[in-house]
């Protein structure tokens, strides 16, 4: 199919899709006047019932936590998928960039990038931990904080090189974090089954809203997901970056 014909087909299909979208959107509530009773009910229940002041986190880690289990394992499946797609294939081996041409040196990281990046690592990790731990109070939680924490590891790649990143975050540690996080989340669910009678039911005292240790199992869930997301993202970043070091034998196609 040539480019012109393809554009014509797209023009017809795109117009039809646009019409379908408009048709669908007409039935939506007017912007700003949504009247969902369930959401408003949760807004009223979250603080008195769960001592959690961030209702989005309450939804994700309490009322709708079973869905978050699925979400967590989607991420887990993606990590496994990336790992198997980017595995070292037959005829490939990992080598440092220095090995190719003897005497040729890879350019050093510039001083500005090195210093700025090094200065940023500690605050980034601190913010990441803060966001994970305060998910039940202010915007944030395990998913958001986990991504920030993985960014901290990526900063070590930016300031130094891939090998340094692997020393700071060894694969075994990253895999352990991913596994422990995913398993911990399931254990919280089973804890609910054992101590409160149903899967993911809160089994800890909810304490007072606004305290760091409050909201029952919500902070625990955030901690488990934070670990898993940190591990998962660090692992995927590491796998992609490793591709830059892969050398392939000429005859292998």
């Amino acid at each position: 199919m040539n480019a012109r014909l393809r554009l014509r087909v797209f023009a017809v299909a795109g117009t039809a899709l646009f019409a379908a979208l408009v048709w669908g959107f007409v039935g939506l509530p007017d912007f700003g006047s949504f009247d969902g009773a369930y959401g408003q009910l949760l807004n009223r229940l979250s603080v008195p019932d769960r001592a959690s002041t961030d209702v989005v986190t309450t939804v994700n880690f309490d009322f709708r936590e079973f869905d978050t289990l699925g979400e967590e394992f989607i991420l887990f499946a993606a990590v496994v998928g990336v790992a198997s797609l980017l595995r070292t294939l037959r005829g490939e081996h990992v080598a440092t960039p220095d090995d190719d041409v003897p005497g040729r040196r890879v350019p050093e990281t510039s001083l500005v990038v090195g210093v700025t990046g090094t200065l940023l690592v500690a605050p980034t990790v601190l913010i990441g931990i803060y966001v994970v731990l305060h998910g039940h109070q202010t915007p944030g939680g395990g998913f958001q904080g986990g991504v920030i924490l993985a960014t901290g590891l990526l900063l070590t790649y930016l300031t130094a090189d891939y090998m340094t990143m692997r020393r700071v975050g060894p694969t075994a540690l990253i895999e352990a974090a991913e596994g422990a996080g995913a398993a911990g989340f399931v254990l919280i669910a089973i804890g609910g089954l054992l101590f409160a009678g149903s899967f993911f039911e809160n089994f800890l005292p909810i304490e007072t809203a606004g305290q760091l240790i409050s909201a029952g199992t919500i902070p625990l869930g955030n901690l488990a997901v934070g670990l898993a997301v940190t591990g998962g993202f660090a692992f995927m970043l590491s796998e992609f970056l490793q591709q830059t070091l892969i050398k392939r034998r000429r005859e292998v196609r």
Partner: protein
Amino acid sequence: MSVLPYVVAAWLVLVGLYGIVTSRNLLHLVVCLAVMQSSSYLLLLSIGYVKDAEPPIFADVPPTTPAVDPIVQALTLTDVVVGTTVTALLLALAVQTHKRYGTLDPEELRPKRPQA
């Protein structure tokens, strides 16, 4: 009544799809898919918006303050996670495609006979 958020959501779907249809590079195609997906974030958040309401965070406001719908926001978080995983897997597939065919241009990709 403002229809702008819905217009932008529809525009993001179409412009992303246009990018996918005309793409000459698999990485560009993955980014176009991410643009399409961002339409669903905008749509979800727009649906749950309530005029003159606070975000559903009651850390420093009384728990009875009017707030926007928290469920669509939680769904958006799920959506972002799914979008990220899809992007990661497609990028990994693009890396493999480049290894096997030596190109990222979908036009130049042709079925290849399996080699021993």
